[in-house]
Every structure is written in structure tokens, then in C-alpha cells.
């Protein structure tokens, strides 16, 4: 019978009407992001506010879009002093390659998804500014890693 499919479609539409809403009423309700959600890059800081960056430039080289900018000066005693670690959030595609590359776990992908800014300038974020000493993490890691060479591969994880 011609029209049977249309009537069946109306029945399905009525059934869907009774299924209730599925939308999240943002900003009255918020979604919970999964653990791995990748948003803007942030610097990992411990309770005392200390960071782990050693100015090794790995993240700057890893970034496919060249949006990380790290400037440092080397003092007379060969210690590195970070002038700034600048991050162009507006150009970031949040791929997480800088975080994966960081050998000192100094960076992480944030979970804040409300990243809108009023001006373009605010999209350029200085993650680190004028940090006097950028080496303690390196010394700490050197003391942690047992002697016997470095792990040269990305490593295969195992399940569970």
C-alpha cells in the first residue's frame, strides 16, 4: 500500500518524541570530559608551584605547527634560565605531540574547554616567564634513572 512507509515513519517519529531529550543544557549543565580529553597545553606544576621544564627544546621541535616558542639564556655557570615559553593557543590544533615528546613530563593537555577570549592577543599565552633556574628536574630525573643507558624507544605498553 502506498503511504504505508510514511505512516510507519510517523509512528517512529512519535516513538522518538517520547524518548526524552539528549542534549546538555550548557551552561546550566556541564559535560564531564574523559580523562584523555585534549585541550590547551598547560605546564605541569607541583604543590609548591614548581615546574619541570629544563628548556631542552624537545616540545618546540616536536610541534608540527611551530607554535611553541622557548627562549632561554645560559648563565655563566652553564645553567639555563628561561626567558619565556610562549604558546599560540589560537593556532594550536591540540594534537598532543608536544606533551608526548616532553621527556620530563613538564607539559600536559588541559581539560578546560572554555577557551574563548575577547581579543586575539589573549590567545598568545606565556606558559613560563622569566624562570631563573630551569634545571632541577633534569638533576632529579638523572638521580631517578638507574645507570645503564637510556631507553631509546617509545616503548611498548602492555594491557592491564
Amino acid at each position: 500500500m502506498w503511504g504505508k512507509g510514511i505512516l510507519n515513519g510517523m509512528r517512529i517519529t512519535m516513538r522518538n518524541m517520547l524518548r526524552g531529550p539528549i542534549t546538555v543544557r550548557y551552561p546550566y549543565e556541564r559535560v564531564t570530559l574523559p580523562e584523555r580529553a585534549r585541550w590547551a597545553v598547560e605546564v605541569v606544576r607541583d604543590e609548591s608551584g614548581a615546574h619541570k621544564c629544563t628548556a631542552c627544546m624537545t616540545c618546540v621541535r616536536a610541534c608540527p605547527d611551530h607554535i611553541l616558542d622557548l627562549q632561554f639564556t645560559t648563565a655563566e655557570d652553564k645553567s639555563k634560565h628561561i626567558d619565556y615559553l610562549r604558546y599560540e593557543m589560537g593556532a594550536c590544533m591540540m594534537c598532543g605531540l608536544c606533551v608526548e615528546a616532553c621527556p620530563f613530563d613538564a607539559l600536559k593537555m588541559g581539560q578546560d574547554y572554555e577557551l574563548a577570549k575577547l581579543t586575539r592577543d589573549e590567545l598568545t599565552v606565556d606558559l613560563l616567564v622569566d624562570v631563573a633556574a630551569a634545571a632541577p628536574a633534569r638533576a632529579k630525573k638523572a638521580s631517578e634513572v638507574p645507570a645503564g643507558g637510556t631507553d631509546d624507544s617509545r616503548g611498548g605498553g602492555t594491557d592491564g
Partner: protein
Amino acid sequence: MTEPHFTVTESGLMTPEGMYIPGEPPKGIRRIPKGVDRLGTEHLIVNMGPQHPSTHGVLHLIVELDGEEVVTVEVSIGFLHRGIEKLAESRRFDHLGTLMDRGDYVSVIHGEQAVALAVEKLMEIEVPAKAAWIRTLTAELTRLASHLVWFGTFGLDTGAMGQFLYAMRDREVLLDILEEISGQRMMFNYVRPGGVVADLPTGIESRILSFCDTFEVYLEEHDALLGGNEIFQARVKGIGVVSKETALAFGLTGANLRASGLGFDVRRDRPYDAYPELEFDIPIGTIGDSWDRYTVRMEEMRQSLRMIRQLVGGMPGGPFTAKVPKVLRPPAGEVYASVESSRGETGIHLFTDGGTTPYRMHYRAASLFTCQLFEEILPGHLFADACMLLGSFDIMLGEVDR
């Protein structure tokens, strides 16, 4: 009645001033009506796109109309060109996925998978079983998400508005699952040469299975709501027939080829990752009209569901990535690897010179081949059917222009 500006002769055009332009006007720059109809009225040139909502991106069609009927079509592409192939020459091999994500941005895992397979072939990396299964699982989830976008927009193109909302409802759950696995909703950057970035999160299996259970019901509802509708059937049946010969001549792949009755599927004919171990059928159409393309894609979604169940049920243990060097340096050479993406065969042709970046990367995008078909298929159809036909072929301008 207005006088026609141009007179078409056997060998060229005659302008009203009496100037003779021999030969066919060069393709792509013709903006003058080619012919006149029986009444002596000029044909109308309509620029469809590049901001037309039903061109599914920034496709520009220069359509010559005789009343409501399409006479000729010129496909004008390149509005979304970002130079992905050139950019790839300055990207490390494990970073190519971020570029491929921006190619076909609705079925992104397939692009990443193609790059990863190419690099693995070149470096002879053996992918652990678990990595291959996770990749296949995410690829099938992505195929479902991508086909849902096609299904929703195909509904829009044929005038069924509600369809789109139901499709997006189901896709939302899929994107949530993929976000939980990879960390993002669209640009996953999850598949790398050697495996995947991270293991499946705990508890995701039950979420995927519960999605499968609900979606199985919803999929039949979708099919009944759109495919069962007689108005829809009247609009798509017998429209836009692509014969086997045409499909082969234009290099169609994927569901568009299978709708024409040719059963080529990269997953079965050049198996990769976990597909050799899976049971699935390849749906094949009969005459290659829009209805066949619809039924083939709907059946593909059912087969994807079947595969996802097998993948979750038989997920092997072991490492999720092979031991690969931090900086990949494949030997100098040439390799081609392809996967079955939602739109057809997505292939990566890599040339390497022994460095850390490709010497040249060619991206075989299935939609580019489909796009060229429009000049052949659209003429003779009504203009209203042109929109529907664009929807039935499921093109993705991100990978056409790349």
C-alpha cells in the same frame, strides 16, 4: 523573446557581432551559455556553491540549465586547498597523521591508518595484534560515524529534515566513545606507525557494546523512516545510474563502486590490520542508482556493527604499539598503502630519501574521483535531483582539495 547572444555551429560559436570563435571553448573558463533550446531562449548558467549548503563543503558547480534540466556541469574544486601533500614534506613520519586528520575530516582514522600502514611497510615494522585490532575497531566506529553524517545529510538533500537530527544523536554517542579512546572528538591523532598512542581505556568495551545494542534498533528505525518512505523512494530510485563501465572508467571505489555491482573492497581484497580475521559481507548493488548507493551504505553500517561486536569480543592481549624508534627514519624507497575509508580507497604513496620527512607524499582521495563523475552523471537530470545526487555519492571536499 530575447535574441541569443551566441549561435552554436558545428565547429564553433558565432557571436552576435559576427565574430567566429572556432572550436569548443576551453574547459573551466567558459562562462557563456553553450546552447539555446528549441524556443530560442538562452540556457541559464547557475553557479552552485562554493557556499551552497547542499554541496557538502566548498564544491563549486557551474551548471547549465535548460529550464529545470541540467545540460552541462563543470566541477570547480580547490576552495579548501591547504597543500597537505606539500606540508607533508616538512613533517616527521609520526606527525603525518595530524595532516591526514584534516584531509577527510569526517572519517579521520582511515587517513591516519593509511599513513601508518605506508610507513610500517617501508620500515618493515610488525604491528602487534592488539594494536591492529584497536585500529580496526576505531576505524569501524569512525566508518559508522561517517556514514551517519552521510545518512543525515542525504536526508536533508531529499527533504527529510528530522533524519539529520536522529543521525547526529547517534553520532554523538560514537564521538563520545572515540573521545574517550583518543582524546578528541574529530582530529583523533590516535593511530601511529607501529600501533596506537594509548591502550583502550578500561570499561570502554561495555560502552561500545551497549551502543551497538541501542544503535541496532535505531539503525532499523532510520532505515524504515527514510528508506521505507515512498516519497524518498520515488526520488532516488532510478536516478543517477552509474554503470559498471562508467564506475570503472572514473576509478570509483568504496560504496559508490559497489552500488554499481562491482564488489571491490580493500578490506577484503587487500586486507590489512585485523580484517583478515573478521567475518563480514560486502554488500553489492545491482544497477548503480541512488537507491543502490543508499542500500549499500545502510548495509555497510550493519556490517560495521557486526565487525565491532567481533572486535570487542575477540580483542587480543599484548602491547598496543610495536617498539619503534622515537624519530622514524625509513629507508629510501617508495611505497603505496591503502585502506577502505568511508568514501572509498584512501591511499598513501610515499617516496622517501632516507631522511626523517617524506620526499614526496601523494594522497589518493576517493572523493576526487567521485567529483569528476558529476560532469558525466548530472546532465539529463532535473536540477533538484542534482542536490540529491551530490548527497548520494557522499563526497568530502576536505580530501578532494586537500
